[in-house]
C-alpha cells in the first residue's frame, strides 16, 4: 500500500496542463499522433507491423549512441530508424524473407544499444526514457523537428496516397499497371522511420505499437475505406495522446501508460461491438448473385 500512497488526484491538474512542459507535450504528442494515425493503414496492409516494432528497437542504439558521442537523441534515433528502414525495405519483398531479415537486424541493434548505453555509462533514467518514452521532456528544438517530420509525412502522403494504397493492397496488379511499387515501398519506410523517431519519444520503443498500429487496427474494424481509416485512426491517436496527458496531469503517473491504455481500450471496445459482426461468415448472406 505504501508504494501506492504516492498516487493521488492532483487538484491543480488544470494548472499543470497549462504549464510549458505540458504545452510542449500536447503539441509534440499531437504531431506524432497525426503522422502515426496516417501511416497505420499502410503498416497493416503492407504487413509491416513487425518492421514498425523492429524499427523502434533499431532506434535504441541510435539514441544511446547519440548520448555516447554527445549528439542530439532525436538525430541518433532518426539516423538509425531511417537506415534500418532502408535495410529492411531492400530485403526481399516476400514477407517471410523480410521477417527473418528484420528479426536479425533487430537483435543486432538491441545488442548495440546495450553496448552503447554501457559505454556511455548512461544512467538508468536515460535508458528508461528511450524504452518507455518521455513526452514531458520535449524541448523547443525537438518540437521544430517534429513539426518538420510531420509536415514531410503529411505532404508526401498527399502526393503518394493513391498509388501507395494500390501498391500496398494489390502489389501484383499495381506493378503491371505501372505503379513504381518498389520505390514507393522505400519512400514509405522512410516516412515510417521518421514517424517512429518521433513516436519513440512519446511512448518509447517498447510501447510504440500502441500508437502506430493499434489506432489503425481499431479504425479498420469500423471501415475499410482508406481515407476514413486514416481520419478515424488520427482521431483515435489524438484522443489517446490528449486523454493520456490529462490523466497524467491528474494523478502524476507516466503519460505513456495512459496513452497506450486508452488506445488499447478503444481497440477492445470496437472489437467487442463491431468484431462480432465482422467475424460472422458472410457467405450465406452475400451470395445473392443472380445469373444474367
Amino acid at each position, binding site marked *: 500500500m505504501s508504494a501506492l500512497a504516492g498516487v493521488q488526484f492532483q487538484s491543480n491538474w488544470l494548472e499543470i496542463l497549462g504549464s510549458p512542459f505540458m504545452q510542449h507535450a500536447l503539441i509534440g504528442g499531437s504531431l506524432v499522433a497525426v503522422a502515426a494515425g496516417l501511416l497505420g493503414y499502410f503498416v*497493416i496492409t503492407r504487413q509491416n507491423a513487425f518492421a514498425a516494432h523492429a524499427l523502434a528497437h533499431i532506434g535504441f542504439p541510435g539514441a544511446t549512441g547519440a548520448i555516447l558521442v554527445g549528439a542530439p537523441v532525436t538525430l541518433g534515433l532518426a539516423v538509425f530508424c531511417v537506415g534500418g528502414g532502408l535495410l529492411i525495405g531492400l530485403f526481399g519483398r516476400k514477407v517471410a524473407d523480410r521477417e527473418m531479415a528484420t528479426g536479425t537486424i533487430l537483435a543486432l541493434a538491441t545488442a548495440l544499444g546495450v553496448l552503447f548505453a554501457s559505454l556511455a555509462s548512461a544512467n538508468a533514467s536515460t535508458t528508461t526514457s528511450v524504452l518507455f518514452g518521455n513526452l514531458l521532456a520535449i524541448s523547443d528544438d525537438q518540437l521544430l523537428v517534429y513539426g518538420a517530420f510531420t509536415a514531410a509525412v503529411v505532404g508526401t502522403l498527399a502526393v503518394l496516397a493513391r498509388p501507395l494504397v494500390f501498391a500496398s493492397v494489390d502489389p501484383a496488379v499495381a506493378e503491371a499497371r505501372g505503379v513504381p511499387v518498389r520505390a514507393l515501398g522505400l519512400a514509405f519506410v522512410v516516412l515510417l522511420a521518421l514517424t517512429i523517431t518521433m513516436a519513440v519519444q512519446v511512448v518509447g520503443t517498447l510501447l510504440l505499437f500502441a500508437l502506430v498500429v493499434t489506432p489503425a487496427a481499431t479504425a479498420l474494424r469500423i471501415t475499410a475505406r482508406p481515407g476514413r481509416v486514416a481520419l478515424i485512426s488520427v482521431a483515435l491517436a489524438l484522443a489517446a495522446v490528449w486523454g493520456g496527458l490529462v490523466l497524467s496531469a491528474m494523478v502524476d503517473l507516466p503519460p505513456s501508460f495512459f496513452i497506450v491504455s486508452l488506445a488499447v481500450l478503444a481497440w477492445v471496445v470496437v472489437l467487442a461491438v463491431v468484431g462480432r459482426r465482422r467475424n460472422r461468415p458472410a457467405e450465406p448472406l452475400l451470395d445473392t448473385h443472380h445469373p444474367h
Partner: protein
Amino acid sequence: MTVLPATGGDRPAALEMVDVSVVRGGRTVWSEGTFSVAAGAVVGVIGPNGAGKTTLFQLALGLLPVAGGRVDVLGAPPRRGNRRIGYVPQNYTAALGHAIRCRDLVTLGLTGSRFGLRPTSAAERARVDEALRRVGAYDYAESRMSELSGGQQQRVAIAQAIVDDAELLLLDEPLANLDLRNQQEIVQLLGELHRERDVTIMVVAHDLNPLLPVLSEAIYLLDGHPHHDPITDVVQEELLTHLYGTPVGVVRTAQGDLFTRAAWRDPAPGSQR
C-alpha cells in the same frame, strides 16, 4: 494443323512473338516462341507446372525483359503500365485482405496509378459502377474482399481488369479453387465479355475442361517451346498425354461437346477384397 481463323480483321495482333526466348534467374524458361494471337481470340495457355505460362504473361505486361526475339502487344512493344491490358494475377484474391472494399479495389484499376490528391470524379465512379454491374458484383460492392466467396472475389478481380476498357485480358488461373458452379459462371462471364466488347482473352489454366466452351485456340508450352494451335487441334489424346506426361483421354459426346479426362482406371473400382 488447321489455319487459325482471322478474327482480328485489320487490327494488329493482340500478342505477336517472333523467335522469342525468355530467361529468368539465369535459366532459359522457354525459347523459339513464334506465334500470333489475333485480336478477338480467346486463348487457353496450358502446360505443366513450371513450364512458363505465367512468364508468358509477364513478358506481355513488360514485367520481364525479352531475352531474345521480338514481342508486340496490341501492335507495340511491351511496356509496364500498358493501360490497354487488364490483368488478373494468379492467387490474386487470396492475397487481398480485410482492408479494402470491392468498389475501392475496382476504382484503383482506373485511378490507382495517379499521384496527387484529386478525388475520384463522377464519371470515374460511373465507370466503376458499370464494371461492377457487368460482372454481377454490384450487390456486394461495399463489402470487403475478405468477406466474399472465391467466385465473388474473382468477379471483382475481373471488374478491376475491365474497368479501364482493356482490349486484352490476361487471366492467370482464374478458376483455381472455385467449385463447379462458380467455374461455369466465370467462364460464361468471359464468353459474354468477349462477345460484347470484342476483347482478346488469354487464360492460363491447368484444367482445360471448364474453358472449352469459350476457347478458340490454345498456346501450349511443350518441351521448352510455346506452340499455338486451334483448340480442336490441341485437344488430342496424344498431344495432351505428351504435354502433361500422364495419360490423358479425350471424349467427344454425341452433342459435340469435348472434354478431357485422366486415362487411367482403378483396376477394380469399388470392389470388395
